[in-house]
């Protein structure tokens, strides 16, 4: 027992000669991987339309329940969030919302510097969250994959879709 105590003291002592792992932030900035889980954004699809379809999966995946939104439907048939709110004062940057998102709309970015003096300013609305680009996924467009018809993409025009069936035709 004593040997093990002494050994652990020796091991700790040896750390005196190790390099520090600390980064001297803010003078030195650490390297953040592109998939670092920081501030959350909402991206747009390659055409510039909002990717979010208000499916609510991010909200239900969120452990501190800090995402809230309401579905609404545009005249062109797209689902869209009427409002989309993240309370960053509750967010734990776990990235489960990004995992849950079926349209790659919600993405975490390598930015964690979001201090505020007033906690109320940590509540981000859709306007604050939306960015102008597609984020990490450049080519993905949900409605191109899903079979729901929207304006400009009729039934049968999504990927891997056959022409719609005319039940009144004799050529079935």
């Amino acid at each position, binding site marked *: 027992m004593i040997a093990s105590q002494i050994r652990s003291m020796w091991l*700790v002592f040896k750390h005196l000669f190790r*390099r*520090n792992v600390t980064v001297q932030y803010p003078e030195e900035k650490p390297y953040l991987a592109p998939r670092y889980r920081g501030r959350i954004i909402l991206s747009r699809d390659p055409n510039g339309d909002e990717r979010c379809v208000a499916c609510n999966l991010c909200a239900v995946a969120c452990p501190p329940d800090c995402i809230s939104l309401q579905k609404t439907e545009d005249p062109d048939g797209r689902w869209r969030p009427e409002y989309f709110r993240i309370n960053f004062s509750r967010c734990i940057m776990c990235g489960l919302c990004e995992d849950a998102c079926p349209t790659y709309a919600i993405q975490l970015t390598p930015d964690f510097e979001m201090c505020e003096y007033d906690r109320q300013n940590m509540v981000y609305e859709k306007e604050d969250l939306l960015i102008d680009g597609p984020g990490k996924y450049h080519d993905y467009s949900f409605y191109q994959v899903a079979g729901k018809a929207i304006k400009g993409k009729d039934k049968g025009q999504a990927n891997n879709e056959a022409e719609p069936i005319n039940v009144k035709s004799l050529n079935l």
Partner: protein
Amino acid sequence: MNTSIWITLLNIFGVLIATVLLAAILTWGERRLLGFWQDRPGPNRVGPFGTLQVIADMIKLFFKEDFTPRFADIPVFVLAPTVVMATMLIAFAVVPMSPSIGVADLNIGLLFVLAMSSIAVYSIILGGYASNNKYALLGGLRAAAQTVSYEVFMGLSLMGVVMMSGSFNLRDIVIAQADTWFIVPQFLGFIVFFIAGIAESRRTPFDLPEAEHELTAGFHTEYSGMKFGMFFVGEYLAVILIAALITTLFLGGWHGPLLPPIIWFCLKTAFLVAIFILLRAALPRPRYDQLMKFGWKVMLPLSLVNLLATAGILLWIA
């Protein structure tokens, strides 16, 4: 006034200021060392190498709200932290730092030091009791039980040294080590005293009175501001005191080649302080029952064996 009074006054204030300063610097030093051992720099922002951290902490402590809970026993609550600081400073009076430095030259110096360090525990018991808080009270109770248990063999472990030097006077004990440091013949005594010393100063791994995982902050849960600061400084004073005592009793005090005696004394003490900090960095805290078991079933028999053996050998030699 003659020169000796000046020298005495110089001694008194020199030791007082030096120890308090050292204790303060130790707050930075400990964190810095812990940092290195944990692969990080530690406090390095205030002043060169973070040395002004001490000042920053002091300003913080002084300007913090000095909160006294409504439910506390207020006079006791206020007095308690002063006890530990006072007793620890007084105990330094008898520690001989070099042939010429040292406040008092008491015949019963050793007993005096032991007495003072025992009184220090009142500070903690009273602080814990006066806080009127369950965590604080539990911390105080632990401190009392721990002191009672470890005090016993702390004293016994020193009896070997006393027998070999034939004196309770610390200066005599140092002088007796001019040839051989007592750590050699009294190695067992050294180990026992070292461990008891850590327990006495309530440092990790024997910091059960304030075990933050179980008791929030133990006896000083309700303390803030400079009252807390006094507990804090008291703890570092205890560390330095125990280190200085070990130096005096086992490591030949100021004896050493080449360098002046005071430097040797300081080096030895600093080395021991570093060991104390290393212990904190490396060892986990035992459970309370393990602590008591270790004290009564291992340390006490060991110190008794040491006492008997020393006495036997001395008798045989005589």
